[in-house]
């Protein structure tokens, strides 16, 4: 088994001593770095072994990253392997005119499963830091069809109003 690459991680005593929000941000950043450093994928156990973070913490962050589409998971037998979600080929920001703190970023991504359009929802928190709130990934081949479906859905909603 090949050992995974990890960035320099603070001693666990220091991590535990951080404020909860600071700790969450730090752990997430380290996990994202690990995903970036290991394009062949990582499992929860591998990260736990190398970082000494709690298993539940690592699993929770990986699930969140997968939910916001920053990472994706593949089942290999009874093991879930996590990957960083693709290489960004193109990106554009769209400001939400109803809420100045919200932005949608459109990415064109490429990963081993193909090309995707990734729409990420970002929001500024109280300290004006950008946080990812959610995301959706659409196969690039299906993207235009998806827009058509969305448009007809919106027209239907408008008619009902």
């Amino acid at each position, binding site marked *: 088994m090949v050992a995974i690459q990890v960035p320099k991680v603070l001693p666990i005593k220091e991590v535990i001593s951080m404020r909860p929000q600071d700790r969450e941000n730090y752990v997430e950043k380290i996990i994202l770095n690990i995903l970036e450093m290991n394009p062949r994928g990582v499992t929860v156990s591998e990260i736990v072994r190398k970082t000494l973070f709690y298993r539940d913490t690592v699993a929770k962050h990986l699930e969140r990253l997968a939910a916001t589409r920053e990472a994706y998971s593949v089942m290999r037998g009874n093991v879930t392997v996590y990957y960083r979600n693709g290489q960004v080929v193109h990106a554009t920001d769209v400001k939400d005119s109803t809420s100045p703190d919200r932005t949608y970023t459109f990415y064109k991504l490429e990963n081993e499963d193909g090309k995707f359009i*990734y729409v990420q929802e970002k929001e500024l928190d109280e*300290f004006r*830091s950008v946080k990812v709130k959610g995301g959706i990934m659409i196969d690039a081949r299906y993207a235009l069809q998806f827009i058509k479906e969305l448009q007809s859905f919106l027209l239907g909603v408008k008619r009902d109003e």
Partner: protein
Amino acid sequence: MSSPIRLIVDERQRDRYARIARIQLSDKTITTPHFFTLTKKHNEFQSTVELITESNAPHIQGCVVRLFDARKMIGTRLTNLTQSRMDVLGRYVEESFRTFLKKAVLVIDPATEYLFYEADLSSWNEDKTLPKPISDYAKKCLAKKEQFRKSAMPSEYPKWKEAYHTQFWNALSRDAPLRNRMIGEVFDLGLTYRSSILLPPVPVIRSEKLMEIAIQINDVGQAISAGRGAEYANYFILQQGILDNEELRDRLVRYLSNTPARIVALKFKYLNLTDAGKVTHLSSYEEFLQQLSFLKEATKGKVFVALENGYQVFPFAAVAFDIVSTSMTGYDGDSAYGHGEYGSWFDPELMVHVPFEDLGKICRNNHNRLPCGHSMCQSIDIATIDADSWNTYRRKHYVLTMNDYMMMIQKAIRDRKIELAREKLINSDISRLKRLIPRV
């Protein structure tokens, strides 16, 4: 994808040890070398706002505010931004401040060296939002000072203070939850006041132990800065003379070479290399600047910031630093020096401050005008100007002169004649600083 790119460094041109770089910090872009104005008083901050919003000076688009000054200088104005009052001319109140926030790179400096230096100790007590360990420390020092004064032993206070200061940082170093909470709170305050760079609260380095603590805080600070909306900087506050310790200097350079932080901020407390003598001192800085310039050449993506530079601004900007800073008056010290009714004027040629009393003679030889090319300076009549207007004017003149210096260095790099920076120093009243700029 989740963390937006907050820092892009693009080295445009280089002439030996000097460089021009385009630095993008979040949504603001500056070109180096660049001067950031340290503002310590409300009127200085207002002058900086005016300079950044009204003048077209491209190399003075940054401002440094100390953490304990931030609430009164910035906090109240940020609150005003939420209102929609208009002034008599029909402009929104704080319109210039809004423009300033869009244009300027703001840096909130934790300025924790003032836990050691007496000058602003009481300022830590004025703002209730400051981290508790810091305000408790200041409270205790002030109470003890009063106690020593009443017991007719005021000379004992400095000894007690020195010991207590070391003890304070030692305790913080051991108490991880308290330390980490304090670092997080300092970052939160910085972001509240719209800082573009996050500086951790570190002790002023006076010994190897304090250096160790500063390194520890820098490491933890980097981790705590994760997920925040500003770029983290390694930060070291150096007491005058500490770089004479070769071992400590090498340790600092080694740390800076290996740190993943992309911004390095160094503050040189009360540094004045223009004084005669101090040969070893000057040599130490000469060597240190060269070590930094090698490091900067090897790691082009890093940004080096020097805070509180005093007269060293010019050579530091030419050799090792992308961003230099000093206070508006040109004096980083906390004494009343230069703060008389009519403060001193910074002579762009001599590169030193000239007392107001001496200006009469200088102006007489220059058709009663100040020997300066700024349009603002051309309209000054020193015979009739009142003290307040004079002091506001001379501070702005100082910052505009810094803009001229930065442009001068930039042009020298473009023309591949950085040795002209050395020439400039040779022809000034601070010519001994020429040693800081290598000959080749």
